[in-house]
């Protein structure tokens, strides 16, 4: 005797097909969308926590805007966003003048590539009186051993000084502490008279075009205690400003 009829199997097969169809076309897409919505919701909660933290930190920074501006100025003096060799030259000149040393030749030798060998051009002979020459010659020098400094660029300089040794030492120690990040690569001290020396110092000034840290919540924290440390890096010269007096001559081509 036949136990199940063919209509029974058709009914079962029909229900199985409908079940597969419903699961495939409705339940799975709905489930996926639900999971996505849950994930989005969790992410949005994290985003809100992060943004709320940022807003709180920004609000607290806003209350110390004066200190923030001062700190920005100091760190920008120390590591500017472009070559800005002008303030470095002015600062160096002020420091050597204050210490009774003469700056003979001050030369900016150009961009320094990190990997190539040093090909500094021959130094010009010393000329009487302080002169400043800015040249566009490119100098390639090995990277200084100053640790990993991501994102920084360097410009070479070659300065020659004249004076006596104690004055030069005072100058050098002060110069090494100015508010501008630079590194000396070589120094040559030569005696030229009984109490006279000539010193040639080659080095690099650093600058950083872009901000390369992560723009996250943690990096919005400012350690204002560092401000006092940074202030120890003195600024000896008065920054040059186009607004200062002393501009304008009837005839710029006659001796001043």
């Amino acid at each position, binding site marked *: 005797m*036949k136990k*199940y*009829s063919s*209509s*029974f199997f058709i*009914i079962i097969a*029909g*229900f199985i097909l*409908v*079940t597969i169809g*419903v*699961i495939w076309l409705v*339940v799975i897409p*709905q489930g996926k969308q*639900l999971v996505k919505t*849950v994930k989005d919701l969790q992410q*949005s*909660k994290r*985003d*809100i926590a992060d*943004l709320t933290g*940022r*807003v709180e*930190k*920004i609000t607290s*920074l*806003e209350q110390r*805007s004066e200190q*923030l*501006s001062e700190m920005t100025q100091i*760190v*920008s003096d*120390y*590591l500017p966003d472009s070559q800005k060799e002008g303030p470095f030259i002015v600062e160096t000149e002020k420091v050597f003048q204050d210490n009774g040393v003469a700056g003979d030749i001050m030369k900016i030798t150009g961009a320094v590539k990190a990997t190539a060998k040093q090909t500094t051009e021959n130094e010009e002979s010393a000329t009487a009186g302080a002169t400043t020459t800015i040249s566009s010659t490119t100098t390639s020098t090995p990277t*200084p*051993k*100053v640790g990993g*400094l991501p994102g920084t660029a360097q410009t070479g300089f070659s300065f020659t000084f004249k004076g006596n040794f104690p004055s030069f*030492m005072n100058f*050098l120690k002060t110069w*090494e502490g100015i508010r501008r*990040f630079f*590194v*000396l*690569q*070589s*120094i*040559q*001290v*030569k*005696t030229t008279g009984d109490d006279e020396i000539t010193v040639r110092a080659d080095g690099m000034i*650093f600058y950083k075009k872009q*901000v*390369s*840290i992560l*723009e996250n919540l943690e*990096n*919005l*924290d*400012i350690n204002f205690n560092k401000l006092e440390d940074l202030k120890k890096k003195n600024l000896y010269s008065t920054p040059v400003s186009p607004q200062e007096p002393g501009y304008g001559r009837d005839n710029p081509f006659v001796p001043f």
Partner: protein
Amino acid sequence: MSVINLLPPELKNKKKQIQLNMTAISLGGSWIVLLFILTAVLFFSRMTLHVSLQANQSEINWLQNAIDQKKDIVSQAYLINDRLQVIKAAQVQNKFSVFLDETIKATPSALQITDFTINPQSKPPVKIQGYAASRREVVKLMEKFDASPYFKEMTFESSNLSEDKVNFTINGQIEKIP
């Protein structure tokens, strides 16, 4: 009392099949209904969460706008931390004055340096020329440099006597950059 089914066997079978089919239909239908209920639950759960998500998105937009309005402060904060990171990494920058201080300490009384060159990238990195009362003074300078934490491997390159003074050249290596 016993019930006697007097229907013919074909009809009996047919009735059984119909009952079986009806059972299958009712069970399958219930299953389909359950599936639709599950789908509805999923849909309404998603809709509820979606409303919360939209509220969160609005809050995010509001907070983002608040931050955008203070863009200057944000830029300043990132700039300061970026520069401080470099300043911290640059603590090892070389201080050549330390080399010269060591030279002051190491120079014997009867010796004059006329040319002192220090360049970590050149070979040799340290080159010293000068005059001394005797070669012993030159060796004293070399020994003192060797004992210093900043110089090492001092070598005597040449010397010649001229007008009662020894004209000398010595070379050396840098042990560490201050």
